[in-house]
């Protein structure tokens, strides 16, 4: 994750990509180093210290920078550990959905015809499924676990990648270099891999980063319903669900996880956009033609 920020920057100034990359690097570092950074055990609360406000407010305690929850657990520590769970779920589910969905979308768009029709009707079917019901069903049958929630979310999201990959493939397929590759005798899988994928990677990357935010919210919804990340693990969604009842009296329990989600989503969007700029040689060349 530190790559984009650390890479040599020649033509582009240390702008959007640098800032987004830095924030993302800090967040990932926080997630990885949570055991070292967290001041308290995220799972064990001090009942004597329950519902303390953040330290800079009246009644705040310097030991609990962002306050404590109903069981006296440190909000900051839970937030740091929660970053691990939420980011892992988000990245894994988006990667799963991205790989499956893009492959199906490119194949549908490249070959067209009946194959396209069949694949896209399956996509329509998946989109029309009530996600929460499916998730509940799978959750009840398989039991809530980290792996299951990744698979469930991946299953819901791949259709979006398939649709975008198909539309972009239709755009790229009519460009002359595809006909030239076919004239050279290049096999269809290699055309899709070497010619189509690199030319549609930008929009897919932007979609993937947008989806990171969506997944975090989905995971929160599923966790709230009890079929998401199993309860003791402090996913950000679970933290918001925990603080929901106290939002007026102890707003810090759900506001800080909320801010963490907002920051993550915005960072992911900036990162995706910046990467799209960086990866596109046409935009990189900047006005020489």
């Amino acid at each position, binding site marked *: 994750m530190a790559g984009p920020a650390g890479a040599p920057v020649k033509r582009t100034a240390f702008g959007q990509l640098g800032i987004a990359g830095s924030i993302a690097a800090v967040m990932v570092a926080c997630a990885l180093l949570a055991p070292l950074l967290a001041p308290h055990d995220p799972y064990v609360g001090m009942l004597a210290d329950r519902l303390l406000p953040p330290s800079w407010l009246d009644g705040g305690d310097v030991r609990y920078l962002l306050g404590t929850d109903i069981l006296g657990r440190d909000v900051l520590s839970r937030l740091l550990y929660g970053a691990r769970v939420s980011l892992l779920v988000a990245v894994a589910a988006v990667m799963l959905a991205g790989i499956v969905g893009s492959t199906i979308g490119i194949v549908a768009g490249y070959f067209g015809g009946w194959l396209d029709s069949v694949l896209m009707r399956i996509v329509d079917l998946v989109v029309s499924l009530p996600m929460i019901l499916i998730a509940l069903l799978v959750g009840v049958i398989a039991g809530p676990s980290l792996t299951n929630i990744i698979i469930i979310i991946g299953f819901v999201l791949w259709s979006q990648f398939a649709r975008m990959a198909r539309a972009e493939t239709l755009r790229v397929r009519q460009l002359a270099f595809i006909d030239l590759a076919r004239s050279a005798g290049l096999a269809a899988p290699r055309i899709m891999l070497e010619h189509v994928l690199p*030319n549609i990677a930008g929009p897919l990357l932007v979609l993937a980063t947008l989806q990171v935010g969506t997944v975090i919210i989905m995971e929160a919804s599923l966790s709230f319903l009890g079929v998401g990340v199993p309860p003791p693990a402090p996913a950000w969604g679970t933290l918001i669900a925990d603080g929901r009842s106290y939002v007026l009296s102890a707003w810090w329990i759900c506001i800080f996880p909320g801010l963490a989600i907002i920051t993550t989503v915005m960072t992911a969007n900036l990162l995706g956009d910046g990467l799209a700029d960086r990866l*596109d040689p046409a935009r990189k060349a900047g006005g020489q033609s």
Partner: protein
Amino acid sequence: MSDAASTTPLLVADQVSREFPLSRGLLAGQRRSVSVLRRVDLTIYSGEAVGLVGESGSGKTTLSRLLLRLDQPTAGDVRFEGARLAEIAGEPLKNFHRAVQPVFQDPFAALNPRMRVGRIVSEPLRANGDYSRAQLDERVGLALERVGLRAVDAARYAQEFSGGQRQRIAIARALVSSPRLIVLDEPVASQDVSIRAQILNLLKELQQEHGMAYLYISHDLATVRFLCDRVYVLYQGEIVEHAPVARLFENPRHPYTRNLLSAWLPADPLRARAQTVDAVRVSDTLPSGAGCAFAPRCPHVTERCRSERPDLIPNHGSEVACHRADEIAL
């Protein structure tokens, strides 16, 4: 070059037709289609430059796609060295892909913006055989130098080149597999006049050096005259005239060819031929299927022209599809 041509044709279109189905409406009963090419015969021998001229929509590009195996005819055959193109596979197909290379009109869409020039140029080799990195680099370098670029340009992206340079890259790619035929679909139509001349001179030199055949598709008669040995004239999906290039320009037999030539301004205005003005507007000119395709626009039209399709038959050293080719005074 046609006198040096061998007797075995390299690539042949034999009574080729291509229809595109129109999407059927929910209520429409019968399936309709647009006929883009009708029973086209075209032959290319080794080492000769063949021109294919015609106005926009005449089917030039559709025909080139059939010849490149990018599309299949709905009737008739395309044959490569005597073998039906639709049926060949395996090593003969790889041989075809090495032997026949296209260069398209738009050099901006023809080069993948995500690939370095070296990978673009080496693709016809990589797709059809095992070559070491060193072999690829060497052949790419030679091809680039041959078209007036540098071997080190292989490491750059296509965006870094101008339109004329990009067309040179596209030609280098077509050259790299030592092809026997290059299909040039309007290769200079999108270029400036000065670049156009450079590219045409390059093409002419390359042919003299390597002796490959060209199928040069254009609506620009001056460039056809410069580059080609024989010319086919395509009108609304039918070959209406086929002649050696000098013959076609000196003595066009088909009324449509005359219209084309009269629309073309030679460099020397004193040599300009008498204008045969196109008397009929291009409206309602879609051929009904029966009769001559050119009948709705032809100043010499008769009843027979409207009802009976003329065949392409020899006429004073040309081949002409016109019932009245002999009667029409020059």
